[in-house]
C-alpha cells in the first residue's frame, strides 16, 4: 500500500500560492498591455500634433499647400487621396471579392478546385505589400498604361481622367489597393456565406427558385451584415495601407482632380517624410497621423460592431 508515503504538498506551501497569485497578476498586466498600447498611441500622436492643431486648426484639413520651406502645412491632398483611393478600390473589389466568394461557396466546380482557389486567395493576402509595390511599379503600371492612355484619349474631357498618365499616379494606386483588399473581402464573404444555414437554401429551392434567385434573395441577405463588416474592415485596411501605395502613387502634394496624375495618401506621406522631418513638419505629420487614426478607428469600430462574432483571421 503506497499510501504510507506522504503527500508533502497537501498543505500548499506559501510559495505555491504566491506563484498562483503572481501568475494571475502577470497575465492581467499582459492583457492590460492592449489598452496601454492603444492609449499610448493616441497620446503620442495627439501630444505630437497639438502644436500643429493650434497653429492651423481645421484649415489643415482643407488646405492643400504643403511647404516645409515656408512652413505652410495643409493635408487636404493626402486626406482626399486617402478617401478617394480607399473608396475607389473598395468599389472595384466588392463585386470581384463577393463574386469570387459566391463562386467558391456554391458547387459550380469540384470542391477540391474550390479549396485551391480559397488557398490561393489567402496566399495573396500573405504577399508583403512592399513586394506588391515593386511589382506594381515595374510590371503592372507599364502594363496598364496603354489602357489608361486610351481612357484619357476618349474620356479626357471628364476632369477625373483629365491628365495624361505618365507613370505613378492615383489610378494604379487604386488598382494595387483593390488587389490588397480582395483577399479580406473574399475570405470574410466566403465565411459568412458558409455560415448561412443549409435549410434556408433548401427552403428556397423547395419552392422552385433558381440558383441565382436563391443567392440574391435568400443567401446574400442572410449573410449581408457580416459581409458588410468584412467590407468595412477592408476599408480600414485600405485607408492605412502604406508601402505599395507610397511606391506607386507618385507622392505629390499638389492637388489634381485627375486620377492619372500623382497624388498622396496620409500613410504615404508619413512613410515618405516622417524619417527626415523636423520642427513644424513633424507636428503636422503627427496631425495627419491623428486624422488617419481617427478615420481608421471609426471604420474599424463600426466594422467590429457588424462582424461581431466572425472570428479574426486578419
Amino acid at each position, binding site marked *: 500500500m503506497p499510501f504510507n508515503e506522504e503527500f508533502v504538498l497537501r498543505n500548499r506551501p506559501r510559495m505555491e500560492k504566491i506563484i*498562483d497569485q503572481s501568475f494571475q497578476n502577470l497575465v492581467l498586466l499582459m492583457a492590460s498591455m*492592449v*489598452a496601454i498600447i*492603444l492609449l499610448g498611441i493616441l497620446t*503620442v*500622436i495627439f501630444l505630437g500634433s497639438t502644436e500643429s492643431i493650434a497653429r492651423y486648426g481645421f484649415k489643415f484639413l482643407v488646405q492643400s499647400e504643403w511647404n516645409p520651406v515656408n512652413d505652410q502645412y495643409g493635408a487636404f491632398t493626402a486626406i482626399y487621396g486617402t478617401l478617394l483611393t480607399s473608396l475607389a478600390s473598395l468599389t472595384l473589389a466588392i463585386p470581384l471579392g463577393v463574386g469570387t466568394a459566391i463562386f467558391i461557396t456554391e458547387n459550380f466546380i469540384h470542391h477540391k478546385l474550390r479549396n485551391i482557389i480559397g488557398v490561393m486567395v489567402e496566399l495573396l493576402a500573405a*504577399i508583403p505589400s512592399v513586394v506588391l509595390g515593386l*511589382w506594381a511599379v515595374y510590371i503592372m503600371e507599364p502594363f496598364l498604361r496603354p489602357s489608361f492612355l486610351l481612357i484619357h484619349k476618349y474620356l479626357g474631357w471628364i476632369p477625373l481622367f483629365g491628365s495624361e498618365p505618365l507613370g505613378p499616379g492615383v489610378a494604379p494606386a487604386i488598382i494595387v489597393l483593390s488587389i490588397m483588399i480582395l483577399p479580406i473581402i473574399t475570405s470574410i464573404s466566403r465565411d459568412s456565406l458558409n455560415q448561412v444555414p443549409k435549410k434556408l437554401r433548401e427552403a428556397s429551392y423547395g419552392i422552385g427558385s433558381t440558383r441565382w434567385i436563391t443567392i440574391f434573395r435568400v443567401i446574400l441577405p442572410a449573410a449581408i451584415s457580416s459581409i458588410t463588416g468584412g467590407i468595412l474592415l477592408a476599408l480600414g485596411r485600405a485607408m492605412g495601407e502604406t508601402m505599395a501605395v507610397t511606391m506607386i502613387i507618385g507622392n505629390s502634394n499638389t492637388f489634381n482632380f485627375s486620377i492619372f496624375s500623382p497624388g498622396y495618401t496620409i500613410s504615404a506621406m508619413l512613410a515618405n517624410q516622417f524619417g527626415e522631418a523636423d520642427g513644424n513638419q513633424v507636428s503636422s505629420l503627427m496631425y495627419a497621423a491623428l486624422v488617419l487614426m481617427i478615420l481608421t478607428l471609426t471604420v474599424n469600430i463600426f466594422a467590429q460592431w457588424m462582424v461581431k462574432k466572425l472570428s*479574426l483571421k486578419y
Partner: protein
Amino acid sequence: MTNNKLSFNYSSKRNITEFIFTFLSAFASIIVLMPLIFIIIYVIIKGGSELNLSLLTQLPEPPGDDLNNAGGVGNAIIGTFIVTLLAALISIPIGVGGGIYLAEYSLKGPFSKFIRFGANVLSGVPSIIAGVFIYGIIVSTRIILGSNFSAIAGGLALSILMIPTIIKTTDEGLKLVSNDLRKASIGIGASKFITIIRITLPAAFNSISTGIVLAIARASGETAPLIFTALFSFYWPSGNDMLLQPLATLSVLIYNFAMEPYEAQNQLAWGASFLLVTLILFINLLARWLSNKTMEK
C-alpha cells in the same frame, strides 16, 4: 409531351440569366487570381534569376557606387530574422499571457470585453502608425541607452502588430479546450496556475502556435513600421550594441532599392523579394500544416 415541357430549355430567359451570373462569378474568380499568379511569376522570373551565392552572402552596395553590381542582401536576411525574432520575443509572452487572462480568468467581465474590443481595434491600426508611435516614444527620445534608430525599436514596432493577433488566437484556442479538462484538473486539487500551464495550454498548443506562426509570417514582411524605427544599414549587424544600431531588413531594402534610379539596385530588390516571398509562403505552409493537425484531433 409533358416530358418535353420539363426538359431543360437552354434558351429560356431564366436559364440565360442564370448562365450570365454564373459566368460573371467565375470571371470574378479568375480576375482575383490573376494578380497572385502574375506576382508569383514575376517574382520567380525577375527575382529567381538573381539568386546566387553572393546574393545571400554579400553586403548591399550603396546606390551609384558600382553601376553593374549592387552586391547582395546578406545583412538584410539576418536583419529580418533578428527583428522578427525580437518582435516574437516581445509579443508572444504578452499575447499568450493576455489571451490566458481573457480565456481563463475573466471570461465575461466588462474588463475582458473591453480588452477583446481593444485587441480588435489594435489589429486595425495601420502599421505605419505603429512606426510613428515607436518613433515618438523610443527613437526620438533616445530612451534606450541613448540609441535612436535601432533593431530594438524595429522589433517593438513589429510586436505591436503581432500582439492583437496572438491574444485573439490564444483566447479562442483556450476557449475551445473542453471545460471537462479544467474540471478534472481542479477536481484533483491542481491550482489554477498548474491547470493552465500543464493542462489547458498544452491542449490548445496547436491552435495557439498556428496563430503565432501566422503573426510571424505577417510581421516578417512588414515594411512601414520599420522605415523609421530600424531604418537601414549597409553593414553586417555586429558588436555588443548590435541591437541598438540601425538594422537592414529585406523589406526595407526592397523599398529603398526599388525607388532608386539604378538598374543594379532594382535587380537586388527583385532578388530580395524572391527571398522574402519564399520565406513567407514557407511560414504560411507551416501554419497551414499546424492547423490541419489541429483539425485531425
